[in-house]
C-alpha cells in the first residue's frame, strides 16, 4: 500500500514538474533579482527588504506597477552598492505578516503603511524610525509640495513616514447624464439633493455607492460629519461628545441621500459600485481618486464623459497618502533613505500623475495632456479646497474606532440604528476605549 502511495505522490509531483517546465520560461523576468538578492550581501552590497501589499506581476493597479519600475531603477542605478528585494503580500494578509516579522525581529527595512492609527502602531513601540535627519539632507524635504503633507506622519514633532502620493475622495459624475437631466454641478447640500431628484426624475440612478465595503459608505459619512463640523480631536480627548447632535444630523443627511442610492447598494462591493458607474448605470460615484485608473482601464470610452466635483457643502477635502516607514533596527539606514527617495524623485512623481492618476506629493512638473483627464479635475478640486482632512476611519485614535465608525454608518444606512442611537453608540465606544 505504501508503495502505491509513494508512486502516486511521485507521479503527481512529476506531472507538476512537467507543467512548470512548460510555463517556466516566461515568468522569471522581474523577480530573477529576488532569488539572487540574498547572496549578494557578501560582496559589499547593502541588501535591504521592502514590504508591500500588492503583487508586482499580477497587479492591474497602475500605482503598484509604478512602484515596480521604481525598484528596478533603484537596483540598476545603485548596482554594486545597494540592492532592494520586495516582499509582496496582499492587503488582507499584510499586517498579520508585518506583525509576525516585527515580532521575530525581522522587520523589513522599509515598509508601506497607511497613515493614522496604523502608523501609530509601529511608531509607539519604536518599530519605525524618525526620518527628520534624512529629510533634512540635500533638500529632500523642500521638494515636497508643503510641510502639510507630513501632518499625519508627525509624532511629537518628528516625522516617521514619507508620503508617496495623495488620493482625494471626490464625487465623479457622468456629464452626459447631468446634461440630459438638466442638472448643474451641485455646490451645496440642498443642490445635491435637488440634483439627485432631477436625475431620478430623468430615469437615472443618481448615486452608486458600496455599503458592502463599509469604508466606501463611511467616506460619504465622513464628508457629512465635516459638513456638520464634527471635531475629531475634541472627541478623542473628551472635550466634545458624539451626542452633541452633530453626528446625529450627519447621519440623518446620510439617510436622506441614501434614498438616491442604487437599489443594490447594501450588498454591492467596491468593485461593483465602481462598475455601475463606468458601465453608465448611475450618474454619481463617490470614491477615492485611485478609481480613475480602474474606470479608464475598464471602459476607455468613458474618460471623456467623466467629470469630477468636490463633495458639496464642505470646504476641505478628504485625502489619503500611501507612505513609507523605515525600520528602527535596519542595518543600512542610508540605503533605505536612498531607496525611499526614489519614490519621490521626479520620474516616480511624474509617473504618479501621468499614469497612476494620483496627486504627486512633490512640486513636479508633469504633462497634463498625457495624464488621465480626470486627474486635472481632481487637481482643481484639490487646489480649490481649503485644506485636507484624513479619511475618517484613519483619523480616529485606533483602527478599531475607525472600523466601528464605518460599521455604525452601515447600520444607519440599513435602518438598524436611528441616527440618535448611532451617536450614542459612538459615544459609548469612545468613552470605553479611546479616552
Amino acid at each position, binding site marked *: 500500500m505504501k508503495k502505491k502511495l509513494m508512486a502516486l505522490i511521485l507521479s503527481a509531483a512529476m506531472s507538476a514538474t512537467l507543467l512548470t517546465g512548460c510555463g517556466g520560461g516566461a515568468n522569471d523576468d522581474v523577480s530573477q533579482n529576488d532569488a539572487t538578492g540574498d547572496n549578494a550581501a557578501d560582496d559589499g552590497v547593502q541588501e535591504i527588504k521592502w514590504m508591500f501589499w500588492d503583487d508586482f506581476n499580477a497587479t492591474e493597479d497602475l500605482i503598484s506597477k509604478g512602484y515596480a519600475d521604481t525598484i528596478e531603477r533603484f537596483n540598476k542605478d545603485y548596482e554594486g552598492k545597494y540592492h532592494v528585494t520586495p516582499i509582496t503580500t496582499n492587503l488582507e494578509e499584510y499586517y498579520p505578516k508585518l*506583525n509576525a516579522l516585527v515580532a521575530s525581529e525581522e522587520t523589513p527595512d522599509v515598509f508601506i503603511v497607511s497613515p493614522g492609527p496604523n502608523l501609530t502602531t*509601529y511608531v509607539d513601540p519604536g518599530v519605525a524610525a524618525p526620518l527628520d535627519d534624512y529629510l533634512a539632507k540635500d533638500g529632500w524635504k523642500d521638494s515636497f509640495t508643503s510641510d502639510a503633507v507630513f501632518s499625519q506622519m508627525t509624532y511629537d514633532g518628528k516625522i516617521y513616514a514619507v508620503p508617496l502620493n495623495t488620493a482625494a475622495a471626490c464625487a465623479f459624475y457622468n456629464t452626459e447624464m447631468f446634461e440630459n437631466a438638466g442638472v448643474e454641478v451641485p455646490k451645496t447640500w440642498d443642490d445635491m439633493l435637488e440634483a439627485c431628484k432631477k436625475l431620478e426624475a430623468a430615469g437615472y440612478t443618481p448615486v452608486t455607492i458600496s*455599503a458592502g465595503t463599509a469604508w466606501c459608505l463611511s467616506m460619504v459619512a465622513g464628508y457629512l460629519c465635516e459638513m456638520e463640523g464634527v471635531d475629531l480631536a475634541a472627541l478623542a480627548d473628551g472635550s466634545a461628545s458624539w451626542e452633541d447632535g452633530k453626528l446625529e444630523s450627519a447621519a440623518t443627511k446620510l439617510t436622506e441621500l441614501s434614498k438616491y442610492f442604487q437599489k443594490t447598494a*447594501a450588498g454591492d462591493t467596491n468593485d461593483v459600485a465602481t462598475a455601475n458607474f463606468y458601465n453608465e448605470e448611475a450618474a454619481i460615484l463617490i470614491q477615492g481618486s485611485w478609481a480613475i485608473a480602474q474606470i479608464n482601464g475598464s471602459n476607455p470610452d468613458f474618460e471623456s464623459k467623466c467629470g469630477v466635483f468636490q463633495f458639496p457643502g464642505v470646504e476641505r477635502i478628504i485625502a489619503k497618502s500611501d507612505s513609507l516607514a523605515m525600520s528602527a533596527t535596519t542595518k543600512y539606514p542610508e540605503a533605505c533613505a536612498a531607496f525611499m527617495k526614489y519614490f519621490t524623485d521626479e520620474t516616480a512623481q511624474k509617473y504618479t500623475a501621468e499614469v497612476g492618476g494620483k496627486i504627486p506629493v512633490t512640486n513636479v512638473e508633469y504633462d497634463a495632456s498625457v495624464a488621465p483627464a480626470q486627474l486635472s479635475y481632481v487637481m482643481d478640486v484639490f487646489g480649490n479646497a481649503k485644506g485636507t482632512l484624513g479619511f475618517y476611519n484613519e483619523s480616529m485614535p485606533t483602527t478599531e474606532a475607525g472600523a466601528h465608525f464605518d*460599521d455604525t454608518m452601515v447600520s444607519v444606512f440599513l435602518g438598524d440604528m436611528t441616527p440618535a442611537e448611532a451617536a450614542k453608540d459612538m459615544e459609548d465606544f469612545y468613552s470605553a476605549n479611546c479616552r
Partner: protein
Amino acid sequence: MDKLLRNKKTIIFFLAPGLILFTVVLFIPICQSIYYSFCEYNGLAASKFIGLRNYKELLKDKSMMFALKNSLFFLVFSCVSQLIMGLFLAALLTNINKGRNLFKNIIYLPCVLSSTALGLLWMFIFSPKLGINQVLEKFGIEGPLWLMDTSGTIILPMWIIGFVALWQYVGQSMMLYMAQISGISKSLYEASYIDGCNRAKSFIYVTMPLIKPMVATAMSLNAIGALKFFDLIFNMTEGGPNHRTEVLATHLYQQGFKYNKYGYASAIGVVLIVLCLVVTGLINKFVKSENYEM
C-alpha cells in the same frame, strides 16, 4: 499477546514521534497564547500581565455576544444538518450500484476546493447586483438582501452561510459514514433479511448501531469545524454588516490582526478551545456507546 501489546518500548516507539512533534510545535505555542490571554499585548511591544481583565472585557463586548451566538447556532445547525444529510446520502449511495462513484465524487468535490475560492464564488452568487437576484427578477420576484439582511434572531445571512457550509462539507461526513458502512460485514445484513427486515429496517437496526462510533467521530469533527469556522464567513461577509455575522474565529482574527489586540484575541482563542473541549466531551459522552464487534 497481551505482553506484546503492553511492551513499553513499542508504545514509546509508536507514540513518540507524533507526541514530540505535537508538543513542540503546537502545544507550547498554545500555552504561550494562553499566557498572552492574561496580558495586554499587541504583538509588537513587550507584553504586560493584566490578570483577568481581557476576560472581563469579553463579557462587555457586543461583537463577542454576536460571535458567540452565531458560533453556537452554527454548531447546532451544522451538527444536525450534517448528521442527517451525511447519513442520508451515505445510505442512498451505498444502496445504489450504477453511478455511485459519480455522485459520490460530485458531492465530495467542494471539500477538495479552497474555501476561500468557494466563499468568493458564493459571495458573487448572493450579491444583489450580480447573482441570483438577477435571475429571480426575470420571474418577477424581488430577492432579499441575502448577505445583508439583519432582521430576526438568527439573521438570514447566517442561514445562508450555514447552507453553503453544509453544501461544502457534507461530502466529508458522507465519506466517513460510507467508509464505516463498507466495513460492516455482509453476513449481518443477510441475517437481518432472513429475520424479515427490508432495506430501510436493516439500515436502522444493523447499520445505525454499528456506525455509532463513527457518528461520534464525524460529529466531533463537525462540531470543532463549526466552532473554528472562518474561511467562508471571512470571504462572504467579513463578519458584517456591523458584526452581525461575526463568529468566534473571525472576531479573533479581527481583534488580533486588524486591531493588534493580540492578548485580547488570545482570550477569545481560549474561550474557543474551552467550548470545543466541552462540546466534544458531550458528544462523546452521549453518542458513543459500547463498541460492537463487526
